[in-house]
């Protein structure tokens, strides 16, 4: 496996450096201090979604942690997270939040396709809109398998396959397909001032996960509550769409 940095990592690092300056850094501390674990752009509570295993005592690696609020939530529940992200500016925001909250855990600069951490050293690999969409699944899924102990789980949230089929090059999601599903893999959103993302069909996610030794546990099609409002920075899917079709989905799988 090549360890050369993919083009998408440099592109996405630049996008996330800008995004962190505009939104992420300012919102980081409030996110760290949220009492509840929530998922995705509609902040659907984990108590409804039920994607995570019992967290107390787990060694967790978060791939594409951004400002690492999810790892902070896990640390408060007794897990031992390590946050990994390729964007120094986001890790800097995370470090500031660590100092301000006193919640400390390792932060590692790295990208999902090539994680500088030892084999078989985690019980949970987590990614919420991190490596799960910004890293190439044909490289980060094998990395997740390598990092996990036998019996460990990978839990990741990504854009739903259906929403990717309906997402135009620019502007909000449509109610019809704008691209074919066969061959789905890499999405270049640079014309919309965004990065290079990845997504697969459900059949291909299942095939790839199983190829790397995972047993499929769940595909959770996240349903926001009727009164949901999207987070301002990520309003490309309005609530009126996301309450009819899942715009986000969470896969959970166990390493055999």
């Amino acid at each position, binding site marked *: 496996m090549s360890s050369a940095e993919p083009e998408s990592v440099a592109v996405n690092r630049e996008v996330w450096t800008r995004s962190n300056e505009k939104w992420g850094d300012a919102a980081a501390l409030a996110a760290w201090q949220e009492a509840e674990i929530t998922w995705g752009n509609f902040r659907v509570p984990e108590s409804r979604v039920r994607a995570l295993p019992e967290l107390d005592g787990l060694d967790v690696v978060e791939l594409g942690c951004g400002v690492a609020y999810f790892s902070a939530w896990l640390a408060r529940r007794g897990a031992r997270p390590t946050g990994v992200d390729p964007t120094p500016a986001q890790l800097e925001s995370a470090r500031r939040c660590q100092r301000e909250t006193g919640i400390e855990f390792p932060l590692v600069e790295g990208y999902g396709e090539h994680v500088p951490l030892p084999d078989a050293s985690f019980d949970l690999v987590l990614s919420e809109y991190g490596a799960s969409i910004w890293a190439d699944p044909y490289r980060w899924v094998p990395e997740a398998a390598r990092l996990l102990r036998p019996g460990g789980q990978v839990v990741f949230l990504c854009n739903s396959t259906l929403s990717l*089929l309906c997402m135009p090059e620019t502007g909000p999601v449509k109610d019809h397909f704008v691209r074919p599903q066969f061959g789905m893999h890499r999405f270049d959103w640079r014309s919309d001032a965004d990065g290079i993302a990845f997504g697969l069909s459900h059949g291909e996610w299942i095939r790839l996960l199983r190829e790397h030794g995972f047993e499929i546990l769940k595909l959770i099609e996240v349903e926001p509550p009727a009164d949901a409002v999207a987070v301002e920075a990520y309003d490309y899917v309005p609530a009126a769409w996301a309450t009819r079709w899942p715009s986000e989905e969470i896969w959970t799988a166990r390493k055999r």
Partner: protein
Amino acid sequence: MTDSVAANVEQWTQTNAEFTDAAAERAWSRSEITWGVFKIPESVVGALGDVNGLDVVELGCGTAFFSSWLVRRGARPVAVDPTPAQLATARRMQEESGIVFPLVEAPGEAVPLPAASFDLALSDYGASLWADPYAWIPEAARLLRPGGRLVFLTNSQLAHLTLPEEDVTPGSTLQRELFGMWRTKWPTYPGIEYHLSHGEWIRVLREHGFTIEALHELRPGEDAVDPTYYYAHPVEWARRWPAEELWEARLR
């Protein structure tokens, strides 16, 4: 008994008179195993594996052509269907071909066969589409031996979400919601279909002891032709988005 059974017996009695009875002879005589309306070869899909020596139950067999293909490859099928007219066609084909296996009149929701007596449960647009999954999936689990496999083909989730109610050429506009998808009564047909989202298929399969082995999103070959009798997406659509999908699962 699920109330869709009577509606679907009516539907398939009508369909058999209009189409499947006349099509049975050609279907039984084909040498190759194929899947779905675009006749995608099993040699391309690779869902069944070696069936030689396997006890197979086909749930919603219709005129039982799929079971006849399996007999010729050394399997011992029992074919189950709720529609007497289709079973009568299957019996006629057995007499004409000399390929004989048990035919049982029953819906997929309640199969009068003993527990743990099959190695493979199969459904090709049978119970997989016309029976309630919350009843037929547990039946498939009951009928299989530990380690036995369930293989079923149905309309894809994307095809179901985009199929218009009126008989117009299907496009790619979403026609109905995904959340809550389960039972569909089309205004122009007596039959009642069942479709689940992918997440819900995985949940119900695992709840009944299955491990998910594959979801094949089928793509017809370049030389495939549009379906003739059934209202479905044309081949041009199905070359861009899967119109049919095939699940493989194994009982733990």
